[in-house]
């Protein structure tokens, strides 16, 4: 009996010591469902950064404990997973990527006053007065104006046919883009809504072709983008195809094969950015996971380093103080190499950094132009 008590006591002490040596930053992400492409990239980027940080002793001497839970790309399940993560008293939460899920679960993290670093891009996420949500990439209100400049001045289109996915991400992007087009007197000649997970785009491409637009804008999630491009090739679409981030992401290029050649657009993050730190990240990622990361891989990776840098600046683990410090924080690569590119978070949690105009050439993104930070 005495031996059992001593054993239990020793185990408890060991458990407490273990708990004290780690900081709990759970990853709640889309590992399956229609968002699996985005989610697995984000997860892999985050896990790679966590291993790097832990190998160097962790954050303030504590190693990161980051279990991964799958939202199944289902807002309801994502909410339950975030609640489960919150029950473990996390320091911060990483993910998810899908806007529809984030809109539902970020309220829980907000109520618990836990900072949440998301890959979601829907404009309204940072416009709902939540002090605990932080983006790892542009929101649509930052990216779509850049895209509109590209449409007006880059390809000089007078009319655009717009195909979008009918979820929070697609609808948010559509609304912002249409306003930008109206400001520039560019006509939207086709407004085609599609479904998440849709596999047959034959009828949608017929509509796009018959619109006779100067450019076709594809704004869906990755897998659907690849199917649209394949179908567009089948139907011999000659109109230039453009897009924002997803349609020119590496995952879509891999899935669409040569049908992605020549697609152009704007990306906030690219593994092919002409920046040595990004290229070194891409090499490490590719060596570890045997595939080329897309923008979501960079989001997950830089999110971890943003937390590390801000925490070390704070000098303590304090979730509320972390959220406060993130407002207006600028992290430069000289200060934290893992951030890859200089990034600034504003008072709403939106991120600002340089971005890129790219074209798909020989199965990779070719950066055509580097666009400066909006704040500069």
């Amino acid at each position, binding site marked *: 009996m005495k031996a059992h008590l001593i054993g239990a006591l020793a185990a408890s002490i060991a458990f407490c010591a273990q708990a004290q040596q780690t900081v709990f930053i759970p990853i709640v992400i889309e590992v399956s469902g229609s968002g699996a492409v985005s989610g697995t990239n984000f997860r892999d980027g985050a896990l790679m950064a966590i291993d790097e940080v832990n190998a160097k002793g962790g954050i303030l001497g504590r190693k990161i404990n980051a279990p991964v839970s799958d939202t199944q790309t289902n807002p309801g399940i994502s909410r339950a997973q975030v609640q489960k993560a919150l029950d473990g008293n996390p320091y911060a939460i990483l993910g998810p990527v899908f806007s529809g899920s984030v809109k539902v679960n970020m309220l829980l993290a907000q109520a618990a006053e836990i900072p949440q670093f998301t890959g979601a891009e829907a404009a309204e996420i940072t416009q709902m007065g939540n002090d605990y949500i932080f983006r790892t990439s542009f929101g649509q209100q930052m990216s779509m104006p850049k895209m509109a400049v590209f449409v007006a001045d880059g390809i000089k289109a007078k009319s655009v046919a717009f195909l979008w996915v009918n979820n929070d991400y697609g609808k948010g992007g559509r609304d912002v883009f249409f306003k930008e087009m109206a400001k520039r007197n560019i006509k939207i000649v086709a407004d085609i809504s599609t479904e998440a997970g849709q596999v047959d785009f034959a*009828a949608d491409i017929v509509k796009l072709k018959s619109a006779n637009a100067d450019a076709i804008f594809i704004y869906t999630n990755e897998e659907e983008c690849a199917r649209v491009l394949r179908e567009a090739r089948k139907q011999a679409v000659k109109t230039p195809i453009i897009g924002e981030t997803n349609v020119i992401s590496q995952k879509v290029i891999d899935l669409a094969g040569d049908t992605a050649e020549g697609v152009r657009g704007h990306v906030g993050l690219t593994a092919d950015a002409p920046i040595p730190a990004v290229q070194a990240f891409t090499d490490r990622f590719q060596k570890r996971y045997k595939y080329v990361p897309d923008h979501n891989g960079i989001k997950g990776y830089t999110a971890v380093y943003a937390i590390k840098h801000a925490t070390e600046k704070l000098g303590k683990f304090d979730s509320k103080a972390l959220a406060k410090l993130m407002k207006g924080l600028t992290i430069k690569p000289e200060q934290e190499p893992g951030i890859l590119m200089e990034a600034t978070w504003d008072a709403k949690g939106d991120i600002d950094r340089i971005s890129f105009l790219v074209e798909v050439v020989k199965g990779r993104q070719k950066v055509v132009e580097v666009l400066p930070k909006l704040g500069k």
Partner: protein
Amino acid sequence: MLLWQTSQTINFAQGEFVMLPAFFVLAAMKFGGLSFPAALLVGLLVALLVLGLLFKRLVVDPILRHGVLPLVISTLGLAILMKEGVKEFYAAEAQGFPGVWPTTNVSIGGAVISAQSLVIIGVALGAVGLLQWFLGATRTGRQMQATAQNPMLARVLGIPVDRMILYTFLVNAALVALASFLVSPIYLAKFTNGELLGLAAFVAAIVGGFNQVRGAIVGGLLLGMVDNFVAAYWSAQYRAAIPLFLLIAVILWRPQGLLGRAEERTV
């Protein structure tokens, strides 16, 4: 439909049967290091073994003797097992699948048509023609038809009924593998593909006629055309409902299907 005629097997995992062979091919390329043509052959052979022989021996034979309903439920369970198995052991993400033909276009009478689509139509017509010839012009095919029409009498006439039923399962496995190899380059290979394909195949078979091969073909063509015309010229939002309206209309006004034969059973 073939399975129903020969062995009263209703397979609600048929969509997943189409989803799976693409992953056999991808696995053969990824883990076996095989070239695409060699992987296609391996995929076909594994499909014959798993979706033909093993499906019959391990699922249908032990369960069918308890009635059609337990088998229906079993195939529903099998569909979930196959989906989750692919998700767990291969990938939850969509996978690119090489096309059996390059993504080039040809111009016919001023209309630009995808060479891939022409190959798909050609292969599908060839497969149907070959199947019809096999069933009607060969001794084995006629024995399979006899088995489908009246297994008891076929047995009395000396036809090896069990072997004929096995052949039907193997033909079914070969056809789903072919469908998988043709559709995956367009839809991409993904564990959820079976949901859509299974529903479409089921509705097409009911609409066309469950007991006629040509009925299923007509049902499939009709469904595909109605679906795409509705989506392109009327409403993309309601496209998912159209096949179900078609299904209800056929069940109400022509339950045997457009080209099906009315059947009577003694109860």
